[in-house]
């Protein structure tokens, strides 16, 4: 518990940032516009994202709801789900799906744990989740330097209404992801990921409550390591 992975600490801070106002995502034709405007990590962090990155440091506990839509080409309709999340800086992130199914996972400095009913499934899912954990960390924390190493970056808009785009630089990342777009202002409002099969995942963050005080005992208990 004592050794702290600085990158994960950054991730937690970023989750604070993730907690936006729940503004709806930008229109898709804006995407074409976005990907015609290449940018760099330095430009983004000192320009478009400066206010947002400053905001990351201020909150210790962030709670909110999310709305997620997963569009899979071969499925008859998009998969929509809603739920809530809790981010406690220094401890971790809980992502809880409430409708139409109940499922949750908890990311801590020690890694990932699953608290769903399907006790017998963890290995396969752990491998799967582990495979994208680093990317999640970089994405949720808006760690532009880390993202810059794997993606070509694009940026558009103003510091109150910005969008950044990412396309894989390397063959490895390109094997899984086609492009990523993030929209926001002072906070992140939405993230959209398109995979190589053309399926899209869109997450919107809503009703964010953030404060700089300590997490309470119940909140801390969520991140306590549990017996296997």
């Amino acid at each position, binding site marked *: 518990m004592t050794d702290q992975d600085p990158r994960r600490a950054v991730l937690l801070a970023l989750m604070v940032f993730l907690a936006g106002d729940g503004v709806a995502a930008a229109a898709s034709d804006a995407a074409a516009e976005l990907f015609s405007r290449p940018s760099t990590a330095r430009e983004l962090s000192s320009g478009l994202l400066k206010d947002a990155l400053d905001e990351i440091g201020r909150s210790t506990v962030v709670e909110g709801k999310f709305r997620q839509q997963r569009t899979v080409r071969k*499925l008859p*309709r998009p998969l929509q789900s809603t739920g809530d999340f809790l981010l406690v800086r220094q401890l971790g992130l809980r992502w809880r799906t409430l409708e*139409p*199914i109940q*499922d949750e996972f908890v990311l801590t400095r020690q890694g990932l744990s699953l608290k769903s009913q399907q006790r017998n*499934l963890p290995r396969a899912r752990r491998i*799967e989740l582990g495979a994208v954990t*680093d990317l999640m960390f970089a994405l949720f924390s808006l760690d532009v330097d880390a993202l810059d190493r794997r993606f070509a970056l694009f940026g558009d808009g103003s510091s109150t209404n910005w969008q950044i785009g990412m396309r894989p630089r*390397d063959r490895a990342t390109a094997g899984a992801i086609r492009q990523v777009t993030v929209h926001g202002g002072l906070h992140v409002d939405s993230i959209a*990921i398109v995979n190589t099969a053309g399926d899209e995942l869109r997450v919107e963050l809503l009703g964010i409550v953030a404060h700089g005080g300590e997490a309470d005992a119940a909140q801390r208990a969520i991140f306590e390591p549990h017996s296997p």
Partner: protein
Amino acid sequence: MAPRIVARFWLWLAALAALAAVFLLIVQPRLTIETDLLDLLPRDRAEGTLADRLASFAGTGARRLLFLVGHRSTEIASAASTGFADSLAASGAFADVHAHWAAQMDSASALYRENRFVLLARSIQASLEANRPEEVEQGALATLYSPIAFARPGGSDDPLGLDASFLLEEVPSAGAAQLEGDQLVVREGDTTYVLIVAQLQGSPFDSGVQQQASAAIGAATAAAQSAAGGDGGAIRVLVSGALPHATAATRSATREVALLSTIGTVAVLALLVSLFRSWRAPALGMVALAAGGSAGIAATYFIFGRVHLIALVFGSSLIGVAIDYSMHYLSDQFRGPHWTPESALRHVAPPILMSMGATLAGFAGLLLMPFPGLRQMAVIALAGLPVACATVLLVFPVLAETRPARLPAWCGRFLIALDGWSAGARRSRYFLRLIVPLLLVAALGLVRIQFQDDIRALQPPANDAVTMERRTRELLKDSTETAVFLVSARDAQELLRSEERLTAELARMVEGGRLGSFRAVTQSLPSEARQRAAFDLLHRYVYSRDGVLARVMRKIGYDERAIAAELATFPPSPHFLEPATWLAHPASELWRPFWLGESGGTFATVVTLGGAGDLAELRSVGARLPGVRFVDRVHDISQTLMRYRVAVSWLLAGIYFVLATVLAFAFGLKAALRLMLPPVGAILIALGGLGWLGIPVTLFTVLALLLTLAMAVDYAIFLHEARNERRTALLAVTLSALTTALSFGLLAFSTTPFIRAIGLTLAMGLGACWLLAVASAEAPDSDPPSPESIA
């Protein structure tokens, strides 16, 4: 000079020329030096062919190399790793180079698709067996709605994600490395490493393979740097596997042996030149050594096909015994004004032949041991010593000085002093004051002796290869154990069922956190019994009319027609995945080494382990299950080393006994006791010294004692036989001890622990031999008894 001597000289010279030609033209170009300590050891004969196949599995593992090519930019790391892998593959040093895994994934996926009605992930099968289909349903939905499911393979062809679950559970453990696209990637800080797995063409302990592979890795590193473009200097390449260790060991051992023997040779030459005041004596000494060495190595090559480094080190120090013969002949020149080559032969040939006979008899005993390394040493000695001896007796009389020589004044004074001391020591309390206390101190040291048989302790100390290995393992969080399970049975299906009983236990240990991971064939090829169970479970819970599949499809929006069509794909009876089909499928490529196949009516597989905490529990699992054996190679090898340390110790004791008996018959009991003092005392002092120094006794120390014995016998016999020419005999013995100590005692400065132990043992043993032989040398026959001895 007698024509007979000249004729024999020319004949032998012709033989030596032939030997040189054979050595230089046939042996030397083809000679490979083995460095794998395990190759010195015998195989457990009781295990027969199974052991052979297990050894070949271990050999496959030893040939595997893991490379991590890293850079701050994922893009550059990816490109550089591709350049690296392409260069490795083109080098011809590797049988196999894997950097991209897409084909592997695709073929595994294809195999699953073809057999999806009989294959189930262990976790899903467990849920269904426990009559909890809702867990499978919940898991499938959770995955479908998970925000990070976008990276999942397969997708909507398989709404339940059964294939992904099976493939993900089957994924060979690459430690912390994650599949990104078709490359395995591990990240640390801001550096991305791409994993490349390569298989060497030959054994990493083969010096030829080492050279070829090292060159290939160097070229691949350059290729990676050039693929990285302007930032090539920042590319980092880490290697893990047996090769870097073996290469480092070979390099340091060869470098040390070369350096130390050069120092030794220079010192010996300086000594001999200053003593004999001509180059002829040392040059002839070298000729005798070279002749013996070439004969020994050539014989070993023709019998064994290769020479082990340790056999070479020991064997060549045994040839060092041959320098005794040269010194004995050359020192004889100083005997007096009436010296002639003919008289020298009469004078030195009997003791030389006698001590050679004793040495050969002792080392022939090594041939009886089922221990390849010892046999090689014995062959080097048995072929080398007679050739060296013949060279001294046949070549020296013609080529060495044919006139008597005079000792340099300093040497004469030294010998007079030594003789005086020796005579004094023999008759006075010097013996009591020096030798007896020395032996007592040594005996006390014996109490402190420790034995060491752990093979790991014999390996060279930490070096770059070890550091890099540790680094790679840290990055990959991989800790493959050297211990494995060997599963065997009369037929393939029984074998797979046995393995499943084992993996069920192992899975429980993994869940309980007492084991990191394991790899077993049944993860990819379940037994027919298990396949039938999977088919029945799928039939009952998943593909039934209102089963898991229908419920999940309904929830995610499929209409009834689509659901009915999907349910109709389920076959009326199972079609099993057979071992033969599996073996022939490209998907089993990475698993095939684990399948040892059939031989002599026995089928066998290997199950490997990662991150085992407690070997005792694994050992008891192996003991409990039928057809399963826990094989801990390191432990077994250490046991073997111990058995052979004990066996060689008994052999040593046996040689002592035989020697004492032979000497008693030849010279009488009293003389035999005196003659045995140097060899017995030398071993006592060497062992006591090791005890006091805290250096553990290993098999190799005991072997060094065997050499000490051979030399001690030489000294004692020379001094006894030449008791009427004490000063030349003393000179011969002193020269011999000095030159051998210079040649091989210098090994005490080696950084490889076991070579250092050999050197130290030899240095202490030889010193003691010389001291005791000189101190206990018999009085000349004509020597009048002195007043002290009567008193």
